[in-house]
């Protein structure tokens, strides 16, 4: 036909071999999976001819034909310890190959709050999950998210009762395994007035090749508040397609911090539906890429009802032959009067071969609104460089210092101090003169 690899059949075939392992025996779960598989079959995987995938060519991923594997290779506690942010005291759940490893996880929460295996929750409390699982995802979803719905084996489920406040964050760690398709699924249900911080961390051993196809759904009922961190630190040869789909009810507040440091080919979809009056969301994002990394962030905020507020602030630093894509869509529906939406995307290009494609979009169907967006692409400010050079800082260190300052503006927004410190350290080690910067004792 057109020379493209059509892997639909391979994936659907592989799903069938997983049949016995798939969680949830209820008819609604089976229907959900069947509908998702039918969508994959009907639509196929996106290509650069799809507007939403225009700048992200998946040919390299499709050629690999990563398929699910049943048995997880060993993953020891020491390997895990290296990945954890220092001094972060959390309720921890570790998933290897998309399956919960109880031996690496910390004990579950008390007081009726739940943070546990999704498969187990589907077995024990299917009724609590049915209204939400797979329903936050929009119907016209791309085939990767549908594939996850059709064939996830396990993942995390967080349920917070009305009014509950979690003191410690919940930490979900997803470990990729070599040569496999790993499909973690996360469902977070925050009932009225509950509050929690949730950290999702995606990791893999350096040099490993694998494909993480993750989907997270978050439901915030009235007045609920969730601070969500997504740290993408996949292996430098790993593929990552991740979707975060959020529905916010009245007066709810959702904050996302999306940090992309790893992965060879990364695509993130972040969609927030502000579904009732007074819902608020804040999306912060930082992508730092070099080598041949490709990082694509597609965000969409749907102001469906009046009086909602959204703030979005994404920054990118690109070196080597890296390429990043940012597409930020803000939709204001016909009824959504008194909408207040702001979006900013700033990019720093450090090398001749780096590339950025950015597309901030506003789609507005109401008149009483305050919406703005801005996007910039540039290099380091020569005046600032001169200032540092005049004070005896050498050129390379001065450049790194300014680069760090540029990226750090996002990290400063993270409320979890231990996590912020860890990321600052990671960021400085990424810079050539990282040690030099620390020696300047400016940090």
């Amino acid at each position: 036909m057109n020379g493209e690899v059509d892997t639909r059949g391979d994936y659907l075939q592989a799903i069938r071999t997983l049949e016995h392992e798939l969680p949830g025996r209820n008819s609604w779960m089976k229907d959900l999976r069947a509908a998702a598989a039918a969508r994959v079959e009907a639509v196929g995987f996106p290509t650069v001819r799809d507007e939403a995938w225009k700048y992200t060519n998946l040919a390299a991923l499709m050629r690999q034909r990563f398929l699910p594997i049943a048995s997880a290779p060993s993953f020891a506690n020491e390997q895990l310890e290296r990945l954890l942010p220092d001094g972060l005291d959390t309720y921890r759940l570790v998933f290897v190959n998309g399956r919960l490893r109880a031996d690496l996880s910390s004990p579950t929460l008390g007081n009726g709050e739940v943070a546990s295996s999704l498969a187990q929750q589907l077995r024990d409390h299917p009724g609590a999950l049915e209204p939400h699982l797979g329903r936050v995802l929009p119907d016209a979803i791309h085939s990767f998210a549908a594939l996850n719905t059709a064939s996830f084996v396990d993942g995390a489920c967080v349920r917070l009762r009305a009014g509950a406040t979690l003191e410690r964050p919940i930490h979900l760690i997803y470990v990729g395994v070599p040569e496999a398709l790993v499909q973690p699924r996360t469902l977070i249900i925050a009932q009225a007035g509950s509050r929690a911080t949730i950290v999702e961390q995606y990791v893999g051993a350096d040099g490993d090749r694998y494909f993480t196809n993750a989907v997270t759904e978050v439901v915030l009922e009235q007045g609920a508040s969730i601070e969500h961190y997504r740290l993408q630190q996949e292996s430098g040869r790993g593929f990552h397609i991740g979707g975060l789909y959020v529905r916010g009810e009245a007066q709810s507040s959702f904050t996302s911090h999306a940090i992309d440091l790893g992965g060879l080919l990364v695509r993130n979809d972040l969609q927030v539906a502000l579904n009732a009056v007074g819902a608020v969301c804040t999306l912060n994002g930082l992508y730092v890429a070099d080598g041949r990394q490709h990082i694509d962030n597609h965000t969409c905020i749907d102001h469906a009802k009046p009086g909602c507020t959204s703030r979005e602030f994404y920054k990118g630093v690109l070196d080597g032959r890296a390429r990043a894509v940012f597409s930020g869509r803000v939709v204001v529906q016909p009824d959504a009067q008194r909408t207040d939406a702001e979006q900013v995307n700033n990019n720093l290009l450090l090398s001749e071969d780096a590339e950025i494609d950015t597309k901030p979009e506003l789609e507005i169907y109401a008149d009483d609104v305050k919406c703005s967006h801005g996007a910039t692409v540039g290099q380091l400010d020569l005046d600032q460089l001169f200032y540092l050079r005049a004070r005896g800082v050498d050129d390379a260190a001065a450049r790194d210092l300014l680069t760090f300052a540029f990226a750090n503006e996002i990290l400063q927004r993270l409320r979890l101090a231990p996590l912020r410190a860890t990321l600052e350290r990671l960021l400085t080690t990424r810079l050539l003169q990282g040690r030099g910067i620390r020696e300047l004792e400016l940090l």
Partner: protein
Amino acid sequence: MATSNREVEELIGRQYRHGFTTLVEADSLPPGLNEDIIGALSAKKQEPAFMLEWRLKAYRHWLTMKEPKWAHVHYPPVDFQSIIYYSAPKSQKDRPKSLDEVDPKLLETYEKLGIPLKERELLAGVAVDAVFDSVSVATTFKDKLAELGIIFCSFSEAVQKYPDLVQKYLGSVVPYTDNFYASLNSAVFSDGSFVYVPKGVRCPMELSTYFRINASKTGQFERTLIVADEGAYVRYLEGCTAPMRDENQLHAAVVELVAMKDAQIKYSTVQNWYPGDEQGRGGIYNFVTKRGACRGDSARISWTQIETGSAITWKYPSVILEGDNSVGEFYSVALTNNYQQADTGTKMIHIGKNTRSTIVSKGIAAGHGQNAYRGLVKVLKGARDARNYTQCDSLLMGDKCGAHTFPYIEVKNPTAKVEHEATTSKISEDQLYYLRQRGLSAEDAVSMVVNGFCKEVFKELPMEFAVEAQKLIGVSLEGAVG
């Protein structure tokens, strides 16, 4: 799939075999589009062989294309086989005899815009004497231009008189393969304007199609080609503020600008074609391809557009910045009222070093109007120190309209500096209140606020055009705020 492909390929590969004799005799060609029609059209216009070949190549390419669907506009499908692609200009006896026979609504608008009486007759299509003032004025102008070596004539005339120039530049900016409507235009374009300004010549007057210096009537598939040779300067005005009487629903024009080293072209458009009635019935589909190429170093191309008419506007005047230090500018006001839809913007392609571009777009949506800005700023690898500044503002009036912004920014060079800013807001109640309090009527207050919003674009227009444009915005917004 395979069979239809083959059929298409056969069609494309088929050479033109027929004569045109019978068709040439007719006053207008039958509706529909095929190679016979194109052949007949070309023969009627007595075009040289290269033109016919080019048209046929374009037509064969067009057959392989699909109508674009990506724009943020909705309309019933256009039946390309029901369009008459050539008809002789209307004879005098079919036209209204005097202004008394013209639709009073149209006359009322002319009155508001302050159009001189004689021009009203021309615009309304009233049959006029051959000795009409502007014709003689036109002749004087033409003599003056000829002295300087400037060519300004209809496209048909240029094809006859300057085939070498036409062949050299036609399709060099917008190739016949460019897009669906550009290919269609390349195959069937009826007429348009041709301008050539020789080396170092500064065109002493603003060239305009409004004053009909090139007297011949242009149809729905216009083609304009403007070439400014090294160091030349020309300013071109297209369209007019007055609503034009026009029976054609589909307009697919192509405009190509070529600016050589140190040359400058300023192209201004005021588009006010029939937008349809209050219920959104009727109105012109305006699907236009406009592009300029800064071929030499330090060339400048500037587009200014005031888009208030048409049921659907789909146009992206663009600049390809090939020469080092070349400059591209785009200033736009697009207004949609009632059920009008506009998807308009620009493309700035930075290829040369130190190239600069500025984009200022003002969208105004009222009633059920849908107004989209769609733009691309592309900085290629070699474009060191490229600079772009983009500002898109939208003003909303009424809760049924929409304003959308779709900017694409692609940067492959680290020394480039690209900035994009967009805001969308409601027309300020405070400002309206302030003006009303000082005794202005609601409509005047709205008109004043909107004109302030558009000021940055209006100042790019020649003075008398700017004055008319301001009035036009007021007239176009009538009834938008109750």
